[in-house]
C-alpha cells in the first residue's frame, strides 16, 4: 500500500536513502512534493504533477520555436528552452547549412526527436538529433504530464509493449511526456484513448490488467462492426 504525502510530511529516519522528491532536516527525511512514497531502494516521493526538467541523456520530443543562427531554439515542454546546433543537421544535409537557409532543414513548428546532451547550472540545454527516430509528417502527437511517463512504459516496458502490439501502432514515448503515434487512423484513435485512460488512472493498482481488458473489448467491438 502506497502512501500519499504532501509537502512537509515526515517520510523516514533513514537519511542515507533520501532520494528524489525529499529533503533532509534535523536528521529526518521529509517530502518535498505532493505525491506517493516509494521506498524500494532509495526513499523517493513520486510527484503527481510538475514540470519536466531536462536531464542529460533523456530523449525528448521538441518543437522548433525559433531560428537564431547557428541554433534552432527548441521547446521541450519544460520551463527552459533548449538549443540544437546547426552542425547536428549539417552531417546529413546535402548542402552546407548556412545563415539564412536553416529553415530549409528544420522550420518553425517542426517536431524533432532529440537527446539532451548537456545541461549546465544556468539551465542552458544542448540537444543532439536522435537520428534513428524520424518523426516527420505522419502520425499524431499526444502531450501528457511527464510524471505519468513511467506508467505508460510499465514495469520493464510491459505496458508499452502491450500497447504497441494490440494497437498495431508505432509508439514513441519521450521523457518529457510527449508521445508520438504512427499507424492507421482507427488504431491511433484506440491508442490515444488508452493513453488517456492510463493518465487518469495512473495512481490505481492493477492498471495493466484493466488496460488489457479494455483493449480486448474494444478490438472485439471493431470486429463486430
Amino acid at each position, binding site marked *: 500500500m502506497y502512501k*500519499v504525502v504532501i509537502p512537509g510530511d515526515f517520510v523516514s529516519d533513514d537519511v542515507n536513502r533520501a532520494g528524489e522528491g525529499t529533503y533532509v532536516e534535523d536528521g529526518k527525511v521529509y517530502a518535498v512534493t505532493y505525491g506517493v512514497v516509494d521506498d*524500494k531502494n532509495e526513499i523517493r516521493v513520486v510527484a503527481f*504533477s*510538475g*514540470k519536466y526538467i531536462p536531464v542529460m541523456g533523456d530523449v525528448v520530443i521538441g518543437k522548433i520555436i525559433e531560428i537564431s543562427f547557428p541554433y534552432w531554439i527548441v521547446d521541450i515542454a519544460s520551463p527552459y528552452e533548449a538549443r540544437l546546433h546547426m552542425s547536428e543537421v549539417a552531417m546529413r544535409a546535402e548542402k552546407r547549412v548556412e545563415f539564412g537557409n536553416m529553415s530549409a532543414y528544420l522550420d518553425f513548428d517542426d517536431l524533432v526527436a532529440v537527446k539532451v546532451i548537456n545541461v549546465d547550472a544556468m539551465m542552458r540545454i544542448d540537444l543532439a538529433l536522435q537520428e534513428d527516430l524520424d518523426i516527420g509528417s505522419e502520425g499524431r502527437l499526444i502531450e501528457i504530464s511527464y510524471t505519468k511517463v513511467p506508467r505508460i512504459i510499465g514495469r520493464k516496458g510491459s505496458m508499452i509493449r502491450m500497447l504497441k502490439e494490440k494497437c498495431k501502432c508505432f509508439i514513441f514515448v519521450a521523457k518529457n511526456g510527449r508521445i508520438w503515434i504512427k499507424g492507421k487512423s482507427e488504431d491511433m484513435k484506440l491508442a490515444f484513448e488508452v493513453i488517456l485512460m492510463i493518465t487518469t488512472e495512473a*495512481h*490505481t493498482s492493477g492498471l495493466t490488467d484493466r488496460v488489457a481488458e479494455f483493449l480486448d473489448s474494444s478490438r472485439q467491438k471493431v470486429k463486430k462492426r
Partner: protein
Amino acid sequence: MKKGEEIEFIKDGKRLDGRTFDELRNIKIEVGVLERADGSCYLELGDNKVIAAVYGPREMHPRHAQDAKMAVIKFRYNMAPFSVDDRKRPGPDRRSVEISKVSREAFEPVIMREYYPKAAIEVYVEILQSDAGTRTAGINAASVALADAGIPMKDLVSSIAVGKVGGEVVLDLNAVEDNYGEADMPIAMIARKNTITALQMDGRLTKDEFGRGLKLAMNACHQIYELQRTALIERYNKRESVKFEEREA
C-alpha cells in the same frame, strides 16, 4: 449600520454570528478545480469565496527580472468587482499590491526556489466574494494550489486573522467585526514548525493581547493545516481504487 453607532459585539460570551471567541468560520477546500492551470484550489472561509491558480515553473518574463540562482515567485491578489457591497473598481490598487507582496513573502521561505533557476512560479488569487480575512483565505488556497501544481515546498503555509472587538481578543473576524472592531491582525505560518512567515497588524493591541491573539491564531493554523492536508489526501483517495500499485519501470 451608521458610522459611530455603538455595536454590541459580544452577547453572553458569544459573538454577533454566534461563534465563541476562539472559533473559526466554516472552511471548505476543493483541490484541482481548474482544468487549464497547473494547480488550483477553491476555498470558502465563512462567506469568503476565493479561487487560487498556480502556473509554472515556467519561463520568467520580463527576462531582466530573472534570477540566475532561483525561481521568482509572482503573486497576484485580485478582488472581483462584485466581491464587495459597492462595486470595486477593477484592477490593481494600493491595497491589492500590498497584499500581493506580503502573500508572496509568506511563501518565499517554503518554496524550493533554487530548484528552478531563471524560472517563474505564478500564483493568482481571485477573490470572488469578500467577508473580511480574504488575504488569509487567499494564502490558504494558494498553498494548496501550489502543492497541487507539484511545486516543491518544505511545508504548507496556513493563515488566519485575529483581532479585537468589544474589548475581547477574538479569532477570524467577519466583515462587521473587521470594519467596526478595534484591531485586526492577519498571520501566516508554517503550522508544523510554528514559524511565522507573515504578520500584519491594523489597530492597537497591548502586549498581553498580542500574545493571546498569537496563541489563538497558532491553534487555528494547526486546524487549517489539517483541513488543507485532508483536502489534498482525499483528492487521491476519492477515485475508486485507493492502492497505488508498485511503481513500474
